């Protein structure tokens, strides 16, 4: 091999090994950090694992929001109009969190079948529904017709 070819070989090997390591690490990191989405029906059927970070989404049930007077503890129920799941959360809820609003909660299931949420997401447009929630509702055949849509056709 000419020295020039040798150099190129080194360069190529360096890149291949580098890319290989990166891909390996990437896939490992990915497998550690994916949060699966479950609908209330799936959770009620016991499909959601305990003690693993999951996402759950649905509509907040009317009249289910209970706030602790002395702390930031709050509990509420989410539903896909088929089954409901209780969510518990300590912290500040997003602006668009309210009854009848579609939300996604991230957290893990505890042994009482309650979702301990570490994060509650409600999107910043009230006509907007998280796609996962929309699909979960559609699956349960309970997609509500949104109101006030006259401007959005």
């Amino acid at each position: 091999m000419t020295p020039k070819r040798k150099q190129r070989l080194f360069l190529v090997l360096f890149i291949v090994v580098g890319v290989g390591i990166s891909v390996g690490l990437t896939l490992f990191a990915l497998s550690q950090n994916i949060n699966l989405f479950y609908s209330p029906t799936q959770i009620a059927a016991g499909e959601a694992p305990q003690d693993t970070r999951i996402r759950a989404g649905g509509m907040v049930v009317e009249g289910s929001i209970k706030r602790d007077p002395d702390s930031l503890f709050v509990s509420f129920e989410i539903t896909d109009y088929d089954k409901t799941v209780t969510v518990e959360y300590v912290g500040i809820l997003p602006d668009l969190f309210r009854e009848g609003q579609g939300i996604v909660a991230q957290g893990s299931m505890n042994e009482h079948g309650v979702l301990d949420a570490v994060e509650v997401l409600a999107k910043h447009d009230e006509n907007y529904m998280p796609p996962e929630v929309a699909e979960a509702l559609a699956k349960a055949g309970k997609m509500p017709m949104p109101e006030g849509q006259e401007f959005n056709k």
Partner: protein
Amino acid sequence: MIIPELGEYALILAFCLSILLATVPLVGATRGNALWMDFARPLSKGMFFFTLVSFLCLGWSFLYNDFSVVYVASNSNTALPWYFRLSAIWGGHEGSLLLWVLILAAWTLAVALKSRNLPQDIVARVLAVMGWIAIGFYLFILFTSSPFERYLPGFPQEGADLNPLLQDFGLIVHPPMLYMGYVGFAVSFAFAIAALLSGRLDAAWARWSRPWTTVAWAFLTLGIALGSWWAYYELGWGGWWFWDPVENASLMPWLVGTALVHSLAVTEKRGVFKSWTVLLAIFAFSLSLLGTFLVRSGVLTSVHAFASDPERGLFILIMLVVVIGGSLLLYAFRAGQMRSESSFGLLSRESLLLVNNVLLVVSCAMVLLGTIYPLIIDALGMGKLSVGPPYFNALFVPLMAIMLVFMGIGMISRWKQTSLKMLAQQLWLPGVAAVLIGMALTWSYSGELAPWVTLGIVLACWVVLTGMRDQYNRLRHRSEKLAGLFKQSRSYYGMQLAHLGVAVLVVGVALVSVYSEQRDLRMQPGDSMTFRDYTFIFEGSKHVEGPNYTSDQGQIKVLYRDEPYAEMYPEKRLYTARGNVMTEAAIDPGFTRDLYVALGEPRENGAWAVRLQYKPYVRWLWLGGLLMTFGGLLAASDPRYRKRLRPAAA
């Protein structure tokens, strides 16, 4: 009023001109017909003019509240101040696409005007490629998302209002800057395709393409920094980067664009990496398009996902396939003809810049994987999932750390061949100094040596010190050192400034990520909370009326070491037109720390849920972004990009 129709007609005319622009000069360039090639410039001007007319028509409809236009009615309101009515033009899907084509036409015009020194056939080809891109977007707007559609006969008397999140200075500046960057890569792309078509890929080509790419990159940097700053103060969470899919969509072209800027430098100076540079130019623009697809098609859960229309998504997807497929096909046919004009050693500035490129591209691939992984899994019907920020942090941070190490070495190294001995001689002092100073700074700030913070500060010092070393090398042999300091080229200062920006950014990221403090608590009037030498006393809330909202305003008195320091007024606003609730955080900005106070929700007896935050060095993030932007603009303004071309054209 026929103004909206006028806008629509102007857009159709611009579309027709874009078809001519895409074909006539290209045919002329292939046949060597100078007359046909000369059509490129006037056609570009015409396309820009009619797009501008169309844009102004939409602006007029917004300014005069023409609610018979669907898009205006959905995104504006008579109670909006005039400047938000104008920026509402790009507050929704249709209008922001119109802004996109306006900027595309503006870049085309800029190329047409600023390319007097380029060979005629190259100009014709570049402008024609811009024309092809424009065709795609005009079709997209005209067929799927026209902003000029009407409600007739019965139209609403009042508009639905602009989303309150967007009623902000951020909306006025962030999207135009970001689009300037996104679309600017279309110019790099057009240069690359033109070079492939003509088969003339040489150092001259790189020199023509370089200033455009650098300017586009600078705008994209600014756009991302502005977006981060906007999210920080407007979303009310005090976060500055969420690894949100749409943020990733802007980061990916930035990463590849950064690689492209560096790879173009090698191609210009040394005539190597040609095919790689072309490939990067294709990818940078393809990723810009992919970003548009991700944002506009609504396939992703994101704060930006305001349009979810499968037809639109499909259109962009087809366009994406055509652009990527077509350009890669062309690349496959032509890449074999490219020849390196020189060779380089294993240890040289060329190979170090290649390492930079590999790291940047790998980071981009990793962000891309994390962003579209949920889409792939969903498309395969394997469930719904999301990829969390830990994935991105775990990979991105180490990759960037390695890159910072190489950044210092790369600056010192020489083209062609660098001896290990020379590097060691030059670098041991900055290296030792960086470790010592970095550790001392970290220790003096926090009284501990937390690993990631120490690493970040040491690496920032390393980048700054190696930069100074390089500066010193350049002055060493000059008799008048101070005068010599001002005699380097603008592109050199641009490089130094941008690298300094990276160091500043790294300091900001390290400190704000690790030493931010946050307290979420329920506060009754009279309650107080102390941390980081600041005492926050909640004094209660009162009702305030704004022009188009009503608001609960909290009063928080802040003491610094028990001395009165400031009053902060965070708000919870209700925008009446849409009934949206918005958190308006109160921020006390500072060079070394921000105090950030936001109201959560009201509780019994005048109490509120309150979020108090201490954000050390958060301003450095955007300061770093600004330095990079100015560095890029300074480098692009280097006179040599204009001077040297004259003799070639004559």
